[in-house]
């Protein structure tokens, strides 16, 4: 076999791009695939052209291919594809938008954040989220009023990633959303804030009718801390859902809430090993001498993870 046939090719981009003018859609799809495989940014303008092809298959392939590239030109091409008539093209473009990493790519997304159509706005917000562009804050707050929960979840995501205290009122409002997934996302997003308002919102979240929201609140309170959180977390140690109890125990441990130790200690008797493990770890973190007897009882627990956490906790207590 000739040596040059052994290796994968790096063809000239302009040569490959000629395939985009082929009358057959199949051939144009192949050209798109080869352009993407070359991983050369010089292919971006050609792929941007292909994303406006008359054939939906070519457009979808181009939207997928742009996943391999970044920057404003890539983003602009993907944004244009969100107005496509074919849902498959829109879906591919939406996925590729979330793969952008270069903050400059946001330049092509920001001007379109006034969109109102559900799928389009969801994709744009999801795309801008990880780029962390402060200019997205205003449009994201506005999008919290959108009728679609999918849009509102992404809007909360954008705000949460920006970690800006001035957005707290909006997040607190979102924590009262009608949709539980929006509430859960908003409660989790409050984790960056050290303010009393955030804490209050999370404490209220512990009384949410849905366990998914209570779980998020219990978990996030460990990050915000504050004067009310320990009492509030102690109040959900008897929640109906062990998932909520587990997060409350973990947060109390992280917060060093020694006053909760004797409430957590008897929870070592619960039959859920995940929860016993968490209790042991929390008791280690709290290191309250009175809890030793509860831990010792489980030194030979049948779950090795529980045993290890118990052992670790007892070491912490001995130290």
């Amino acid at each position, binding site marked *: 076999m000739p040596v040059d046939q052994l290796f994968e090719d790096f063809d000239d981009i302009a040569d490959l791009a000629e395939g985009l003018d082929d009358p057959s859609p199949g051939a144009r799809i*192949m050209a798109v695939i080869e352009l993407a495989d070359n991983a050369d940014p010089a292919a971006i303008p050609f792929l941007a052209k292909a994303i406006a092809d008359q054939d939906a298959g070519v457009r979808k392939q181009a939207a997928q291919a742009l996943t391999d590239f970044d920057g404003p030109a890539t983003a602009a091409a993907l944004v244009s594809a969100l107005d496509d008539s074919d849902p498959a093209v829109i879906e591919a473009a939406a996925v590729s938008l979330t793969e952008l990493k270069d903050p400059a790519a946001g330049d092509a997304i920001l001007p379109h954040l006034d969109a109102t159509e559900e799928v389009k706005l969801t994709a744009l917000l999801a795309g801008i989220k990880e780029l962390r562009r402060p200019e997205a804050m205003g449009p994201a707050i506005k999008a919290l009023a959108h009728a679609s929960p999918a849009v509102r979840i992404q809007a909360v995501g954008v705000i949460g990633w920006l970690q800006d205290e001035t957005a707290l009122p909006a997040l607190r409002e979102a924590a009262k959303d009608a949709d539980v997934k929006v509430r859960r996302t908003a409660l989790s997003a409050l984790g960056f804030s050290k303010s009393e308002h955030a804490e209050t919102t999370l404490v209220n979240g512990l009384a949410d009718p849905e366990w998914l929201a209570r779980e998020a609140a219990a978990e996030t309170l460990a990050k915000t801390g504050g004067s009310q959180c320990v009492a509030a977390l102690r109040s959900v140690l008897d929640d109906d859902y062990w998932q909520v109890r587990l997060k409350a125990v973990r947060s109390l441990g992280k917060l060093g809430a020694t006053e909760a130790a004797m409430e957590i200690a008897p929870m070592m008797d619960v039959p859920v090993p995940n929860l016993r493990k968490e209790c042991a770890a929390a008791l280690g973190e709290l290191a309250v001498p009175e809890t030793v007897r509860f831990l010792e009882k489980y030194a030979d627990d049948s779950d090795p993870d529980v045993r290890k956490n118990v052992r670790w906790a007892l070491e912490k207590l001995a130290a």
Partner: protein
Amino acid sequence: MPLAQTATTVPVVVNDDLCIADKGCTACVDVCPLDVLRIVEKDDGKKTAYMKYDECWYCMPCEADCPTDAVTVNLPYLLK
């Protein structure tokens, strides 16, 4: 000691109406880790991909990477 011709049902199915092998596409053939797919010329002179060797890990890159959604990966009968 002649070899037998034993029939076997294959897990990977290609819709040859959608397949664009004729345009030079070999995406599914290229990505198969076990290299079990090939391109064949049909009676009408057009080409299509097909499963030549029944040695499938049902891992799906052929289905996922097909640009025209022509490929379907079923589970091999022996284990489904």
